[in-house]
């Protein structure tokens, strides 16, 4: 156990699984970096943000290799390789680039098993960065997990910390279905204690990072941190919150969410993806259908506005959910109770 960054946790998960299973391979644009360069250094980058650094050095060019800039072909190749005996981890770099290869994910990998009457197995992991907060502007800041969550046949993982990232990525690599593994790009330097060895975190089992009586907060990925921060602050003003990190949006641990709402009667959902048809609406609909009895207040969503992600820091800050906005939402559902009881 030692302090590890989100970046290191992911690198370690890949390293451990590659040691364990020779069928695990890594591909993507500059996941190694340097092939065809004049210096002959072929592990120059280890990913655009250094996440896969050193893996080619350990595992060789047959297991960690660069792709041309052609997402449809190499993501499709990863799907085809997965269906024929390998266990590829393909890096899409920015999840925004899914527009260049959605077909291979949505119509091929995700549907093989069903279309083929249960005969296919597609152990594919697609890693990609998501999220705003990096001033990367409209085409490099999207969250997009609602798209993947919408598509039957895919699993979708959004780790909220280094510990989570390592365990969930190992689980993803061992999983026999196509998994979209999303890493928040502003979290790579976040650190926490992470075991050195291998461990897995099962899909579809939410993590309660706080337990409380008044309000349930469901938050995804980086938003879990903001939710925890808000919960800590609220604690001081006498409002006690449960914070749920679902870890995976598909499968979603609906049981835990419903149980917590049954206890607290109030729900705030924090989702940094665009607000229409997103995870916040998904969880709200679940609860409004299945835990209606328990609800004591409207379900509040803390989400960005229906706009592309703006470049300027001022606007981007305004765009993002944060602890203040969560705090305000929690207070508003609490004050609703007061109104009711008044």
């Amino acid at each position: 156990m030692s302090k590890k960054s989100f970046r290191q946790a992911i690198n370690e998960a890949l390293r451990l699984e590659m040691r364990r299973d020779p069928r695990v391979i890594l591909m993507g644009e500059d996941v190694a970096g340097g092939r065809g360069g004049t210096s002959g250094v072929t592990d120059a980058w280890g990913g655009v943000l250094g996440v896969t650094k050193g893996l080619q050095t350990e595992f060789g060019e047959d297991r960690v290799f660069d792709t041309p800039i052609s997402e449809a072909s190499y993501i499709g190749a990863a799907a085809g390789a997965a269906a024929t005996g390998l266990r590829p981890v393909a890096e899409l770099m920015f999840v925004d680039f899914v527009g260049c290869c959605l077909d291979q994910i949505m119509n091929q990998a995700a549907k093989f098993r069903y279309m083929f009457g249960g005969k296919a197995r597609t152990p594919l992991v697609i890693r990609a960065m998501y999220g705003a907060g990096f001033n990367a502007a409209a085409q490099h800041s999207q969250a997009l997990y609602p798209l993947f969550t919408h598509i039957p046949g895919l699993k979708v993982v959004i780790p909220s910390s280094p510990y989570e990232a390592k365990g969930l990525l190992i689980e993803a690599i061992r999983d026999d279905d196509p998994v979209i593994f999303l890493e928040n790009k502003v979290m790579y330097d976040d650190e926490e204690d992470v075991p050195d060895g291998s461990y897995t975190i099962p899909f579809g089992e939410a993590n309660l990072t706080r337990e409380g009586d008044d309000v349930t907060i469901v938050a995804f990925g980086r938003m879990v941190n903001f939710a925890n921060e808000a919960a800590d602050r609220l604690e001081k003003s006498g409002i006690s919150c449960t914070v749920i990190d679902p870890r995976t949006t598909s499968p979603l641990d609906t049981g835990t969410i419903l149980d917590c709402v049954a206890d607290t009667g109030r729900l705030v959902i924090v989702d940094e993806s665009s607000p229409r048809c997103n995870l916040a609406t998904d969880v709200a609909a679940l609860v409004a259908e299945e835990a209606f009895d328990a609800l004591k207040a409207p379900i509040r969503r803390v989400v960005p506005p229906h706009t592309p992600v703006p470049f300027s820091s001022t606007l981007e800050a305004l765009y993002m959910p944060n602890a203040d906005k969560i705090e305000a939402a929690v207070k508003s559902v609490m004050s609703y109770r007061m109104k009711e009881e008044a």
Partner: protein
Amino acid sequence: MQIARDILLRSYRSMRTIRDFEERLHVEFATGEIPGFVHLYCGEEASGVGVCANLTDTDTIASTHRGHGHCIAKGVGVDGMMAEIYGRSTGVCRGKGGSMHIADLSLGMLGANGIVGGGPPLICGAALSHKLLKDGGVAVAFYGDGASNEGSTLESLNLATVWQLPAIFVVEDNGYGEATGASYAVAGTQKARAEGFGMPYYECDGTDFFSVYETAGEAIRRARAGEGPAMVHVHLSRWYGHFEGDSMSYRIDGEVARERAERDCLVNFRRRTTEAGLLDAAALDEIDAAVKAEVEQSVISAKAAPTPEDADLLKDVYVAY
């Protein structure tokens, strides 16, 4: 080139099976009993069979919306196929895929594909598996002239060369993508495209089994030997509409009739093999009769087979969820 007698007989049988299967589907479809879209491979049999005669079950192919021929050529049984097309639980995909999604991974048949250009990237992946798992296999993407304009196809040509994959790109050029002629939609040439992506180019007459068998054989031999990918451009003609129901007013009258009369791969195969004394007519007749019965039986079985159970709806979305 000397071709073993059993390969000849097997190939004839495959071609005949495709022909009968397709002609029968044409009839069945007209009765309204077959649901969904059906695209017939009739007239193109020598292409799929000529290529696949060079392959074993270890090798992989990916097909298209016009997939029945490739399936049969790769060894998928007509019973399971017919049942699938009828949406029965005895279908090779348990009735969940239909004509456009017939697959059998145990035979290296990675699926028909409803998406034009869907297969070539997958074949890069299958070729990667063959290469890294060192099983000696090659992977073949079949795709049409129309599909040769899809970005996914073009990217795959590049990827296959960059990674030096044992992948073969078989362009089945029947001159049309739906109702649009290749002379309009395909700029430049397939030959220059192959060169543009650094791979050798081969071409052959897709109505001549021997031409396809030998040309594809050479490309496959190279790939198997680790010499990298190749493009095989097969010249073909489509005998029916794009899908069942298409009146083909975009084709000049008599075009198909002439193709049928002059470029029937089965007729040509029979003439050539019997004239050269490679096969005797009786053996071929026997195959014809057996195939006829087999296809007939597949229709009877399909019609009699049960539809899927309600519980199947929710099964097999995931291995585990």
